[in-house]
């Protein structure tokens, strides 16, 4: 299961796991220490039992799932508990979840890429199955009967007229045997048609805490004697240094402690000034009064236009760039083609802006640094904080909280550094809270992208296609160890800047090149933003496919289906992609519903985040365009996923709604600019995500065929912009190639 969709020789856990699992960081089987041989660990009487470290079964019958993934709105812990509960045959009401700290024993800790369920489904299923088998074995031993004569269900083992609850069996102290990886792999798992709790829309376990104010986020954490820090924002995003700091005016603020000018050995902050006081309000007032003489650094004159100039320079040089896809001879074929279409597509700077502004609290206790704050990538954040503090990574622990939004912002742990360094400087715990302006202007924003696509059609099909993508590479900033090799094994490539361009369409001549815009990286060190590379690669490609379909005189749906033939490496995946498209056609009324003049359907397809863990996704947007004003109305967005298996149907729908509207927000409402080396937006007036009044009618649904589950949190984000752009072009003839799509751009394209 799952592996058959692997075209690139990478397992379904995808690229990150394949790199990290072969290094120092293991992948989470959760095998307990000393389990190389069977039965090394025996549960102590009246304590608890853990077949693997992912789950604990208590003498009270409570089953705790140790959740190594961050909770940022996906209800991932609830899904984990469902998966364990299914194979463990526990009672759902006995299930609990615990979000764990950054102990290395958990292996790779990263939450992103819509990977969580796809990567852990097998391990969690086996953890549950191992627990069930151990409990059955314990009962068999206790009753002197063969294990095969007993069954487990609803948190009890029964057989031969006897019954014992899981809690009773654990309390008796006879449940033995931590499981080795080999034994786990030998377990037979349930067929999907016998699932009882997987596939049920249970109430998410985190929701009750989130409606009564008791859910604790990092920003809610407090330590006795703690001080509060407020960043004094540098005038450029990266490269500015503080020549001198004058806090004399701030001394008039009651509660002010001092302004710290901090050196960050990790290099993430070039100039870091923090005003510290005994309340956050006092720190905020003081920070406004601190005078800093800044050296603006090397990027003070960079703006968006400069980045595009650099992108075009890179694209024009055939020696630049790493190769992601090469089938046949695309350039040679285009050179011999009668008519070649070329188009440039762009996206601007996009911010994460999670509702909980980035923040962290630090404390040094018994020689160990404790950092408190929500995080998505502990495996990388721990060494980053250690580098800033100049201590060994073994001396840093990250404590997890509910995340008030992640969207990739909390994959980079740079926001721990101001708190850590201020705490080190003062010898007292300090909590540093970014205000909204700090949060936006210090964001590891999604790099602006500039792409050039060229293609030709012969006999109604694409004869050749090239896609050159230039942007700042997020992996260079967040996790350089995750850079891969390009297909020629000659150059490094950031797969998280190019995923999505490796499509399931069969193109005989296809060349995809990724160009590294170093100026973009230096000016605004980039990060991963929800949907990552496919947020811009799919935008350009799926728009351009419509341009080619138009050239071929073909219907956009028929044109796509003609290229989804499932040939060679595209087998199995192309068919599933075609199936979600057909479902979206049926649900939206594409081709059957009569639309008025000026209204059209637009189509876009995507594999979600990456081929190796594909969630096949289709969107059909119905859009009405006013050809005089350029104003347009989204009548409806129809989105269909193929999720393989849905753990919680309502959870999938919730994630689909969220991903769809995030896509809408990027398509129509969100962007900011780089001005004088700084991020221009300062708050939610200058950066304007979707609000309720902007939500169009949605029809989100999924296909679940019972095969391996795939991710749901991002795939829809990738298809909304191209579907809307394609609908606008079909309705009005106006092709907009720069996100966000605005009425002014549509009007300009109409002229």
């Amino acid at each position, binding site marked *: 299961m799952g592996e058959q969709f692997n075209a690139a020789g990478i397992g379904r856990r995808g690229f990150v796991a394949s790199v990290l699992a072969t290094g120092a960081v293991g992948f989470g089987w959760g095998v307990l220490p000393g389990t190389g041989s069977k039965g090394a660990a025996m549960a102590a009487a009246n304590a608890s039992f853990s077949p693997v470290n992912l789950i604990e079964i208590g003498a009270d019958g409570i089953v705790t799932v140790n959740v190594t993934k961050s909770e*940022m709105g996906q209800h991932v812990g609830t899904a984990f508990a469902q998966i364990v509960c299914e194979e463990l045959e526990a009672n759902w009401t006995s299930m609990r979840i615990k979000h764990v700290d950054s102990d290395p024993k958990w292996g790779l800790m990263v939450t992103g890429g819509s990977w969580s369920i796809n990567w852990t489904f097998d391990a969690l299923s086996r953890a549950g199955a191992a627990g069930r088998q151990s409990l059955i074995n314990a009962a068999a031993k206790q009753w002197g009967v063969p294990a095969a004569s007993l069954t487990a269900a609803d948190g009890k083992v029964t057989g031969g007229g006897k019954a014992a609850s899981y809690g009773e069996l654990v309390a008796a102290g006879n449940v033995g045997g931590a499981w080795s990886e080999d034994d786990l792999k030998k377990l037979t798992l349930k067929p999907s048609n016998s699932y009882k709790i997987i596939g049920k829309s249970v109430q998410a376990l985190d929701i009750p805490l989130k409606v009564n104010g008791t859910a604790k986020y990092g920003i809610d954490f407090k330590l006795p004697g703690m001080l509060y820090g407020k960043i004094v924002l540098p005038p450029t995003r990266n490269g500015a240094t503080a020549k001198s700091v004058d806090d004399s005016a701030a001394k008039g603020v009651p509660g002010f402690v001092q302004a710290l000018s901090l050196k960050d050995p990790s290099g993430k902050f070039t100039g870091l000034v923090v005003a510290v006081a005994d309340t956050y309000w006092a720190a905020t007032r003081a920070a406004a009064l601190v005078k800093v003489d800044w050296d603006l650094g090397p990027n003070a004159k960079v703006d968006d236009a400069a980045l595009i100039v650099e992108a075009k320079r890179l694209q024009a040089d055939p020696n630049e760039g790493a190769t992601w896809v090469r089938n046949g001879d695309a350039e040679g074929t285009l050179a011999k083609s009668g008519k070649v279409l070329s188009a440039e597509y762009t996206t601007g700077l996009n911010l994460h802006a999670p509702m909980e502004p980035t923040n962290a609290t630090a404390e040094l206790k018994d020689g160990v640094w404790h950092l408190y704050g929500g995080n998505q990538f502990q495996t990388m954040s721990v060494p980053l904080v250690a580098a800033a503090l100049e201590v060994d990574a073994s001396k840093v622990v990250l404590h997890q909280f509910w995340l008030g939004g992640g969207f990739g912002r909390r994959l980079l742990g740079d926001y721990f550094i101001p708190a850590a360094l201020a705490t080190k400087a003062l010898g007292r715990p300090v909590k540093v809270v970014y205000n909204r302006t700090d949060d936006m202007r210090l964001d590891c924003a999604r790099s602006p992208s500039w792409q050039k696509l060229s293609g030709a059609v012969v006999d109604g099909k694409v004869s050749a296609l090239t896609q050159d993508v230039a942007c700042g590479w997020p992996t260079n900033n967040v996790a350089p160890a995750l850079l891969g090799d390009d297909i020629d094994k000659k150059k490094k490539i950031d797969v998280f800047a190019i995923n999505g361009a490796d499509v399931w369409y069969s193109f005989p001549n296809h060349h995809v090149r990724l160009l590294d815009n170093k100026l973009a990286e230096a000016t605004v060190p980039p990060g991963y933003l929800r949907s990552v590379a496919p947020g811009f690669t799919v935008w350009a490609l799926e728009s351009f496919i419509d341009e080619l379909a138009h050239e071929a005189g073909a219907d956009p749906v028929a044109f796509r289906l003609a290229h989804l033939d499932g040939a060679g490496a595209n087998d199995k995946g192309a068919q599933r992609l075609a199936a979600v498209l057909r479902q979206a056609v049926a649900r939206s009324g594409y081709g059957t519903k009569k639309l008025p003049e000026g209204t059209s359907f637009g189509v876009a397809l995507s594999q979600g985040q990456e081929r190796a863990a594909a969630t096949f996704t289709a969107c059909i947007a119905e859009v009405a365009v006013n050809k005089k004003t350029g104003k347009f109305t989204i009548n409806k967005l129809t989105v269909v996923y193929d999720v393989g298996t849905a753990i919680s149907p309502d959870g999938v729908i919730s994630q689909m709604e969220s991903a769809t509207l995030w896509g809408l927000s990027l398509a129509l409402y969100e962007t900011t600019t780089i001005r004088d080396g700084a991020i221009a937006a300062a708050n939610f007036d200058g950066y304007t995500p979707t609000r309720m009044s902007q939500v169009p009618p949605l029809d989100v649904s999924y296909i679940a065929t019972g095969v391996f589950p795939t991710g749901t949190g991002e795939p829809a984000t990738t298809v909304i912009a191209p579907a809307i752009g394609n609908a606008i072009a079909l309705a009005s003839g106006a092709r907009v190639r720069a996100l966000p799509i605005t009425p002014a751009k549509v009007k300009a394209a109409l002229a």
Partner: protein
Amino acid sequence: MNITSREKGSNAMITITVNGHQQTLDVPSDMPLLWVLRDVLDLTGTKFGCGQNLCGACTVHKDGKAVRSCQVSIGDAAGSSITTIEGLGAKGEHPVQTAWIKEQVPACGYCQSGQIMNAAAFLSANPDPEDEEIVRAMDGNLCRCSQYVRIQRAVKTAAEIMKTGGAATNG
């Protein structure tokens, strides 16, 4: 509740009722209610989002009306009765909270205290709203997870619950 003196001899003591308990506070009079609630009274259910009346995450009730607590100084709140998410329903069972669970609204959940407080005040003034009225009332509350479909549905559900007997104990 343990109230810490933050400022020496700056202002008169400020008296305020929070979730039914009268408090006398010695804090700067220009300190926003938001930070008094969070950092002085440890009522962290009220969230900091933007500090500029742009997102609604900090919404509380002041004498029964929804206000953005980042925009109300503690001096201006003196003498008033404040209700926060912690005091909305005795056991978190206000009809809006019940509806929020029924419709599985929260994703990351960070904005939801503000959404719930805004919705509760809106419904107490308009117990049988049209869809357009809900959208207008809730449009100032940003949800970065975009749970808007569910929020809108849950406001309707809360109105139904209130109609069928679940009293709105709006503070």
